[in-house]
C-alpha cells in the first residue's frame, strides 16, 4: 500500500511525514515525530491518554487517521509549556494530582481545552469534561482541585493583565 505524504503544524512547528493509510495520528506523533508524550492507553477512544487538539478541537488522536491531519494545526503536551510551565502543569505538581503520571499528558491537554472555553468551571463541569480521561491512580480528587486552583490563578492573571 503506498504511503500518504502529510504536512501539518505540530506545536507551532512545520512537520511532514509519510503515513500508512491505516496509521493513526497517535502513531504518527509517537513513531514518526518522536513526540512520545501523547500516550496510548486503549486505542479505542475510551481512556483519553492520547488527547491532543486539532485546530483547537479536543480529539483522541488514536481515533483520527494520520492522513486526516494534513494541513491541520496539532497541539500536544510537548507544546503546553512555553518559557514557563502552564499554570495547570505547575498546579498538577503542587497538588500531587498525578501518581504514575501516564494519564497526565492527556488530562492536562483536556483541562487546558476546558479552561479556554470555560475559565470558571464548577467541580461538576470539570468532572464531566474530564470523564473521557481515565485515571486509575488518584481517584480524581486532587486532579479536580488542581484544575480549580489553576483556573483561579489564570482568572487572577487575566484580571491583572486587563
Amino acid at each position, binding site marked *: 500500500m503506498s504511503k500518504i505524504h502529510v504536512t501539518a503544524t505540530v506545536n507551532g512547528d512545520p512537520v511532514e511525514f509519510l503515513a500508512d493509510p491505516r496509521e493513526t495520528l497517535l502513531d504518527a506523533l509517537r513513531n514518526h515525530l518522536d513526540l*512520545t508524550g501523547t*500516550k496510548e492507553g486503549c486505542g*479505542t477512544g475510551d481512556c483519553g491518554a492520547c488527547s491532543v487538539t486539532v485546530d483547537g478541537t479536543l480529539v483522541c488522536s488514536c481515533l483520527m487517521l494520520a492522513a486526516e491531519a494534513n494541513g491541520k494545526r496539532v497541539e500536544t*503536551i510537548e507544546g503546553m509549556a512555553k518559557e514557563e510551565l502552564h499554570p495547570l502543569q505547575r498546579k498538577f505538581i503542587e497538588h500531587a494530582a498525578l501518581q504514575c503520571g501516564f*494519564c497526565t*499528558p492527556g488530562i492536562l491537554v483536556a483541562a487546558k481545552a476546558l479552561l479556554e472555553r470555560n475559565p470558571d468551571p464548577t467541580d461538576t463541569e470539570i468532572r464531566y469534561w474530564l470523564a473521557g480521561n*481515565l485515571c486509575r491512580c488518584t481517584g480524581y480528587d486532587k486532579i479536580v482541585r488542581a484544575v480549580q486552583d489553576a483556573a483561579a490563578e489564570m482568572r487572577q492573571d487575566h484580571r491583572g493583565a486587563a
Partner: protein
Amino acid sequence: MARDDVKTGYKLIGTRPNRPDGLDKVTGRARYGADFSLPGMLWAAVVRSPHAHARIVKIDASKALALEGVKAVVTRADLPTGLTGEDLNLQDNTLAGDRALYDGHAVAAVAATSQLLAQDAARLIEVEYEVLPHVTDVDAAIAPDAPVIRPGVADYSVPEGMHGNVARYMEFGHGDVEAGFAAADVVREHTYRTEATHQGYIEPHAAVGQLGEDGRGEMWVCTQGHWYIRRMSAAVLGIEAANLRVTPSEIGGGFGGKTTIFMEPLTLALSKKAGGRPVKLVMSRSEVLRATGPTASASMDVKIGMKKDGTITAGQVYFRMQGGAFPGMSPIGEALPCAFACYDIPALKHEGIEIITNRPKAAAYRAPGSPMAAFAVESMIDELCRELNLDPIEVRLKNGAKNGSKSSYGPVYDVIGLQETLQAARAHPNYSIPLGPNQGRGVASGFWFNHGGETSVSLAIGEDGTATVSVGTPDIGGSRASIGLMVAEHLGIPYENVRVNVVETGALGVNEPTHGSRATFASGKAAIEAANQAIREMCRRAAAEWGIEPEAVEWRDGAAHPAGPNAGKHPPMTIGEIGAKMGSTGGPISGHHEVTAGGYGASFGTHVVDVEVDPETGRTTVLRYLVVQDAGTAIHPAYVEGQYQGGAAQGIGWALNEEYIYGPDGRLQNPVFLDYRIPVASDLPMIDTVIIEVPNPGHPYGVRGVGETGITPPLPAIASAIAGATGVRIRSLPCSPPKVLAAIKAAKG
C-alpha cells in the same frame, strides 16, 4: 495517638514538597515502557487463542514469514524444555504448549519492521485448534460434571475426594465455633460472590528486548520489579540472569499486575531469532484485559454469631477462589487470614480451596484477597448490625483488634491503629450528616499485612555535599519523593539536595518489586541505614582532620560536630566541606545496605460512604466518601492521601461496575474500557481522607505501608450503603444498576 518513644519534631518529614519526577510527567518527557526506541528496532505482535480451551494441532507460519519485512516467528518449540514448577507455569503462560488454556492465551509471536506489518503477519499465522470442553465460573468448575482441565493439578494440601479442578486446600482457626454459635442470639449464614476485576493500569505492558546469539541481552520494560522480570525471563528462555540487564521505565500504574512476566520474554526470543535486532512489543488494551492481570473471582460462605449487645461470638468461612488456568495464583492464602483480621473473636474457623478454570493466569492486585474477604465478612457483620439495630462503628470498636490482640490467623498484633481509625471515623462530620430519601450509609474496615522483603540500596555523597540514592523499587506513586524526604531528614540537608534514582539490575543486589506496600517502608529503611553508614564515614573524616577519636564526633544538621568533654573546640564541618575534600581524605563516601526487611507494621483502615440509589433505574451515586487509615508516620502526606483516594476509587469500581464477563463460549465479552468500566471523574465525589499516625516501631521514622488497605473496605461499605438506601442486600458484586433494580423489584414482590 502520639507515642513517647517515637521521634517527632521533624524538619522535612510530614511536609509536601514537589515530587522529583513531576516536571517530566507534566511535560510529556517522562519515558514509559512504550516510549523507548532503538536503532534497527523491530516491532512484534502476538497470536492469541480465540478459544477458552483447545489442543493446538498445528501452527503454520509460512505465509507470515513470506511477507517482506517479517524477520522472525517464535512458538513454544523455540523455548527450552524441562522446566518445572512455577518456571514451567511462567513459560506455559508466555507461550502455550500443546494446549491453549484460556481466551487470549499467547500461541505465537512475530517480529517485523513495523507495527502494522507485525500485526498483518500475525493474522497470517495459521493455527489449527481442536476445541476442548472449558469452564470459567468458580462454582461451576467444581460441579460434578465440570471438565477436569488440568489433571494432577492438586498439590499436597488437597485431601482425597475433592474435585479434580481443586489445586489447593487450607483450613485454620481457633476456639470452639459450635459453642460460639450456640452462645449467640443471632446466627446468620450467606454466600457472597465477587467477580474478577483487572488492575486497570492505564499503561499497557510494553518492553523493548535485545538478545544476541551469545545469550547476552538487555530489556527496557515497564514493571514493578525488574529483578523479577530478569529472573523469570531468564528461566523461561534458559539464559543466565547475569547476562540479562533489565532497566525499568517509568511505570504507568501496576497495582500488583506488573510484578510478573506476560509477554516480556518474547521480545528477547524474537530478537535472538532476528539476529540480535532489538524488538519492541506493546500490548493493546484488549490483550491487557484478556491475557494479563486479573484478580480472582470468589464465592464465599460466611456464618457469624452475634449477641444482642453486638458481641461477636464465632465466625466461620468457606472460600472458593479461582485464579485462572494455573495453580498458586488465587489469593486464597491471603484472603482467609484477612477475613477476620480486623476482629478479636474467641472462635473462628477458616476453610478455603483454590480452583482452576479456563481464565488468564491471575496476578496480584492491591491487597490480594483482602477485598473479597472483606466483602463477605464485613457485609455479614453489617447485616447483623442492621438486624439488631446496632451502630456499625460501635460494634467494630467492641470486637475490633487492639494492641496485643491475638489475630484471626494466629500471631499477636504489636502496635496497630484499627481502634484509632474507628474513633476518627465516628468523630468525622460525614458520620452524622442526615440522610435523605433513597440514601444510605455504609461502614467497613479493612486490613493488609504489608511487606518488607529483599531490598538493596546505595547512597553516595557528592563533591558538593548532595546525596544520590539508588533504589531498586520502581516509583509508582511518589516513593522517590518520600525516600528523598527521609534521607534528607536523616542527613540534615535540604530535600532538593537529595536525588533518588530507580536503577537497573546491574547496579544493585536483588530487589523485590514495588509490591506489598513496601517501597517507602523497605527502600526507605535501607536508605536510612545507607545514610547512617555514610554519616559514620563522614564523622570519621572530620575526626581525622581534627585529630580526635571518631566516637567524639556527632552528626546533626548536616554537619559533623565535636561532642563530649575531650573533643576540643572545632567549628562544625558541613557535609559540603567533607564532600569537597573527600578525594584527599580517603576517597569517595558512600553507604550501602542490603536486607530482607522485617518490622513492617500491619495496616488498618475504616471507610464511611453515603450513596443514593435511583429506585427507577437501580443506579447508585456515591454522595460522599471518607477514608480513615493508619499510615504509621505520613512521610509525604499528599501521596499518602493519594494512595487512600486511589485505593478507594478502585474499590468503588469493583463494588459498582467492574467485572469480567465470560460468555458461554468461554470468551471474555468486555475486553475494552468502554465495556470494562472503571470509574471516571464524573462517577466519583471528592474523597475525604483522615491520616491516622500510630507509628510503626519497626521503622526508624514509624512508617507503615499505605498502598493496599484502601481498596478493601469499599466493596462491603458500598453494598451496605445500598442496603441502607433500598432495604435490599446485594451479595454478589458488582452492584450494577440492573442487579440492584432487579433486587428492588423482587423485594417489592
